[in-house]
């Protein structure tokens, strides 16, 4: 590993300038503010910190956020795999358009998604009116949170699994067929293990995104404390009440969860890369 090159000995110019600019910008926009967050909650001291995040309301919010994000990511894992499979393996009219539409949740502003999903799944909405008679309430209930998170997280799974599916060596499948395996067995023993790392990565990415999601959830959730209140909303409420330390404490807890997830995702990605060789 080479040490930092002195400016004299680097062939291309501009190292000092670009690195300096990048670090300064990064520091000002990202690192400094995040440091403020962590310091603010550190100022509470361990006891104060614990008090701020161990209230029943906060714990319930974490349970809702984690639970719904997990559920949505699981649904996305299954259906995302289905969508990726259908897009990669099959030819049908309009396939290219469908492929482009999968990215919609990436591009559509969350507030727009939020109000659209609410209207759709409310009691008088197109889908909601079909489910209401069956006793299934989606809008203004915890289930609504999961619906919103399914919308948000879908592209993560599809886009992570697609390239891996594309690269699978068909020769292996043909070999399995010659040995007598039927399609389900081929899928179960050959294809699925090959895409498992990327599927898990996509799952983790969807989960991470779902944890912090705000805009698309708060319209459909109903936001009842202890029942359908998510952690980001709790932070906003604390801020509106000028309880900066409380907000900072919850924010730091969320940040910590994000870091852990980031680590897990990195490990999963490394596993996926190693498997791919």
């Amino acid at each position, binding site marked *: 590993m080479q040490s930092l090159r002195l400016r004299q000995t680097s062939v291309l*110019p501009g190292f000092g300038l670009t690195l300096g600019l*990048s670090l300064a910008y990064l520091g000002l926009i990202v690192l400094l503010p995040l440091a403020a*967050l962590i310091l603010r909650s550190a100022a509470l001291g361990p006891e104060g910190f614990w008090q701020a995040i161990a209230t029943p309301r906060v714990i319930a919010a974490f349970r809702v956020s984690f639970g719904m994000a997990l559920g949505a990511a699981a649904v996305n894992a299954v259906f995302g795999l289905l969508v990726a499979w259908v897009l990669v393996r099959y030819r049908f009219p309009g396939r290219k358009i469908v492929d482009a539409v999968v990215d919609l949740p990436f591009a559509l*502003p969350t*507030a727009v998604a939020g*109000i*659209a999903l609410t209207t759709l799944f409310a009691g008088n909405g197109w889908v909601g009116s079909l489910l209401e008679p069956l006793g299934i309430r989606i809008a203004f209930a915890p289930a609504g949170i999961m619906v919103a998170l399914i919308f948000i997280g879908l592209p993560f799974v599809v886009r992570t699994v697609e390239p891996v599916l594309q690269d699978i060596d068909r020769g292996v499948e043909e070999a399995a067929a010659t040995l007598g395996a039927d*399609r389900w067995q*081929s899928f179960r023993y050959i294809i699925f293990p090959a895409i498992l790392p990327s599927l898990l990565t996509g799952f983790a990415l969807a989960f991470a995104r779902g944890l912090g999601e705000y805009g698309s959830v708060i319209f459909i959730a109903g936001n009842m404390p202890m029942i359908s209140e998510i952690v980001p909303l709790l932070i906003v409420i604390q801020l509106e009440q000028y309880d900066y330390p409380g907000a900072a404490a919850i924010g730091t807890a969320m940040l910590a969860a994000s870091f852990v997830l*980031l680590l897990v995702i990195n490990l999963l990605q490394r596993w996926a890369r190693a498997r791919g060789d």
Partner: protein
Amino acid sequence: MTIATSTARAVARRGTSEGLAVRAILIALALAFLAVFLLLPLITVFSEALRQGVGAYLAGISSPDALAAIRLTLIAAAIAVPLNLVFGIAASWAIAKFEFRGKSLLVTLIDLPFSVSPVIAGLIYVLLFGAQGWFGPWLSAHGIKIVFAVPGIVLATIFVTFPFVARELIPLMQAQGTEEEEAARSLGAGGWQILWRVTLPNVKWGLLYGVLLCNARAMGEFGAVSVVSGHIRGLTNTMPLHVEILYNEYDFVGAFAVASLLALLALVTLAAKAILEWRHGDELAGSRG
């Protein structure tokens, strides 16, 4: 036996593809899922916006508050995107063309805004510049408003769109290596000449792609901006915030009207993305997902 069925049977017999029936069911399931979760919401936006006719729609998007929101959204994007563009170019130059310790740490840090909740993005600036923030007293003493004013919104927008351009450029420039730049240097070119004449033309599609995504996010950001904005109608509302306000006041047509503009932006972004990928896919890095 028609040709279609015999072909289908032959394909199934080869053993590397499912039977026609299975395939049809899977495709139907996938499309149904996508229809319910992606297509219907999109259609809902437009159908609700036009529920009371075109007149009401046009009124919704041309009210003074709506126009102010549109203006603020455009301003925030017009500041955030170029800044992040310059940063993206600088960071990818440093990372792709040189070797130094701590490079992977830097890349991870650049990705950070991607992985934190947008509410956190707003929270951190409130903690810095809000009334009880670190700089709060100093700012109010000098009569400068950041939080609950336009500067705060711009800052939050910059934060959430921070990595987009860099994420596109870094793998692309790394894949292209340094040979052309070294050749240019050996021919006597200076730093800016190399950047402008050699490097940037080679990454122009990736750059455009990154700018497109950056802009879409900048205009559509809700959570982060919501926290710092103060929701002052006509002054500190971006389009997404305006949508929220109208919706909470049960002005559904108004809300969906403005939302439809954002949805159109999303569709244009998707289309441009698809075109770029289709025509210049080999000049974009494989950094999806």
